């Protein structure tokens, strides 16, 4: 039984973004971070070379291997035999299983189907699969832009639901900023609620070579952010990353608190926070869309960090988030170590899902 299209009220007849140029080069750290006027001191480590990036791509493919195997089997079975009704159904099934959600799945499949029927894509397995990759890459690059760290200091706010990997991601970002660009980072332990949250961030600060600003447990998160920015200014640090307590988007009072933290930051520094990222767990189902939407309303989210991609979950929810909300993924997390963070590349993502 084919999947029916989504309810008329929810479906948008929006144009998917213009053709994404397929390049052979993955997104680099230099591309994903906008450092403004800053002259980055070399920390003795060269920015990622082409060879290194290809190595990363290979590792990425390997770590995504389980998920891609499953999807490739689905895709191969549906696209390499015949291009018929069954094939489209199986593609739908594969995308639903990847958590892409009904509306986005319907749009992608319908678009590809139309193109094959109209003849703009030749009806052979290889061509259709390549076009599918292109479409998926396009969809996931909706709203694409770099992480804005041009402020002095640049203030980055991390938000998200409990357990999605905010604190770990902050550690990774701090480490990469220091390693790739030689930037000095201050971490603000804005989670004043969770037991031992500041200690947890403290350990990451140590590993990443960043400074930690914290308060006593139960303190005011806004105050911690304030102190951290003041400290960064005093020491001439480049970036402040503010951790916040995990919270469900359904908790109105906590969403209000988040908005308040932003106001405190903005009062201190008019354009700050310069970038707000929401962490989304790759295993999250359709609720991820809701999360992104509600957090965006409270905190003007600029981008997504898609975490825990080293598991078997495909993280297809980001297709829906980009497609329906125009919020792009900027970073992906692929493990619990400092190195396990990469710039999001739409084509890599789509290809890694489908590649042999």
């Amino acid at each position, binding site marked *: 039984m084919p999947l*029916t299209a989504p309810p008329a009220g929810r479906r948008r007849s929006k144009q998917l973004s213009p053709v994404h140029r397929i390049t052979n080069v993955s997104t680099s750290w230099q591309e994903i971070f906008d450092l403004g006027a800053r002259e980055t001191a070399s920390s003795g480590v060269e920015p990622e070379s082409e060879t290194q990036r290809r190595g990363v791509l290979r590792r990425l493919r390997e770590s995504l291997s389980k998920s891609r195997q499953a999807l490739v089997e689905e895709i191969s079975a549906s696209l390499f035999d015949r291009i018929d009704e069954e094939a489209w159904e199986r593609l739908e099934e594969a995308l639903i299983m990847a958590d892409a959600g009904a509306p986005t799945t319907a749009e992608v499949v319908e678009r590809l189907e139309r193109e094959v029927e109209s003849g703009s894509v030749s009806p052979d397995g290889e061509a259709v699969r390549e076009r599918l990759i292109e479409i998926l890459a396009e969809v996931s690059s909706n709203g694409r832009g770099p992480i804005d760290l041009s402020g002095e200091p640049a203030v980055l706010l991390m938000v998200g639901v409990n357990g999605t990997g905010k604190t770990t991601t902050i550690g990774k970002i701090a480490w990469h900023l220091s390693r790739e660009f030689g930037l000095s980072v201050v971490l603000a332990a804005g989670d004043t609620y969770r037991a031992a949250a500041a200690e947890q961030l403290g350990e990451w600060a140590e590993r990443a070579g960043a400074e930690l600003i914290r308060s006593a447990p139960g303190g005011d998160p806004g105050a911690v952010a304030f102190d951290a920015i003041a400290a960064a200014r005093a020491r001439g640090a480049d970036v402040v990353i503010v951790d916040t307590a995990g919270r469900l988007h359904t908790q109105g009072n906590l969403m209000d608190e988040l908005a308040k933290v932003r106001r405190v930051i903005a009062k201190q520094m008019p354009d700050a926070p310069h970038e707000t990222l929401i962490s989304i767990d790759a295993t999250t189902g359709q609720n991820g869309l809701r999360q992104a939407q509600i957090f965006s309303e409270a905190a003007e989210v600029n981008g997504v960090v898609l975490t825990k991609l080293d598991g078997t979950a495909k993280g297809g929810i980001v297709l829906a988030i980009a497609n329906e909300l125009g919020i792009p993924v900027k970073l992906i997390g692929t493990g619990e170590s400092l190195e396990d963070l990469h710039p999001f590349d739409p084509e890599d993502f789509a290809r890694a899902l489908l590649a042999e």
Partner: protein
Amino acid sequence: MVFDQLSDRLQATLSEVRSRGKLSEGDVDAAMREIRLALLEADVNFKVVKTFTKTLKERCLGAEVLESLDPGQQVVKIVNEELTGLMGGAGRDLAFASNGPTVILMAGLQGSGKTTACAKLARHLGESGKDVALAACDVYRPAAVDQLVTVGERAGAHVYEQGTDADPVEIAAWALDRARTEERDVLIVDTAGRLHIDEDLMDELTKVRKRTRPHDVLLVVDAMTGQDAVGVAESFAEAAEFDGVVMTKLDGDARGGAALSVKAVTGKPILFASTGEKLEAFERFHPDRMASRILGMGDMLSLIEKAEQQVDERQAEDLQKKLEDDRFTLEDFRQQMRQVRKMGPLSGLIGMLPGMGAMKQLKGADVDEGELDRVEAIILSMTPLERANPAIVKGSRRKRIAAGSGTKVQQVNQLIKQFDQMRKMMRQMMSGKAPDPQQLAQMAGGAPRPKYRRR
């Protein structure tokens, strides 16, 4: 509240079915299609949905329904039964040791809520008088041990830890010895979050299990998990041989499909539900009650249980009697509201009241406590007679009440109307019938029916 979306859709579909009297095959087909889509959009695993709707369809196309005098009601009954079965039947208890400490092992993915769940379980068991110890075997996650120490102590349990330099398997074994020596009733073993495809860590989990020989192994699953839930559950079933599931973050608005899928695929039931960050937000999971809740039939048993924790038994009996005899007044409602607000976040409790799921005023993932203050103010502005018999509240009385409570006459009207509908529903519930989903939809101002374009 979790399952809200699925609940709405199923109720709408079933209300349509019920309104039709005799059902044709085409009617059943249409309903099955909608149920299928509702389940998929609720994150229920694709393959589970396939099997479920197939079984459902077979039953619904059988004589049981088509020849029944009230086929619509039969369909509701079947969906309820199948949904209950999908989630685990009648509910199950933890297995306890006959001598020595009962060992409970907690496992799951990173970020699923294991450590918090450990503390909550410790508190839950402590409530019934058990002496509980916790073993801190997560030596990987920064400050994990500190976290368990803090929340464990808050829960009134003893925490056994050896910092982060020891081997988790050894810590577990040492903790068990200690629990035996100190004659604890329960030892809950917290472990590090791990990927089900991480061979090394899954081996470690197997080793911990073999060394501690737990009476219960619980898999902690985040309610917002999508299609991946099944794969995770299957792998953990193989390596950890878990006995049951703890579903966490159920206070969100995740559609909860993972909950429905896990049992279907592994055969293991959901034993506990974690419904908030506070330690008290933890309860035994009853599949039959949850199925009932999803279908809008309420969960009076859970509600009464919770109420019993707050009020004494006599008061609870009084309440039960009042509901049965239909003597429930606005004053009773106000008293109950007070008690209820003491029980914890209302959003969690609302779903337990029959028909409450549909009451727009109280609906929404985040109950507006301000709204409830207004409701209380309105009731307080009524005379005892008016509270006992709202039917007499007309015209000038309404104006007086509105003025006295600082609200509008419209709001007074709305409260009285909804209270009436609620009483009607309770009457039906008490007489053993499921409330009419159509009526529920009406109360909510008409639940919107989703329209679908067929491929």
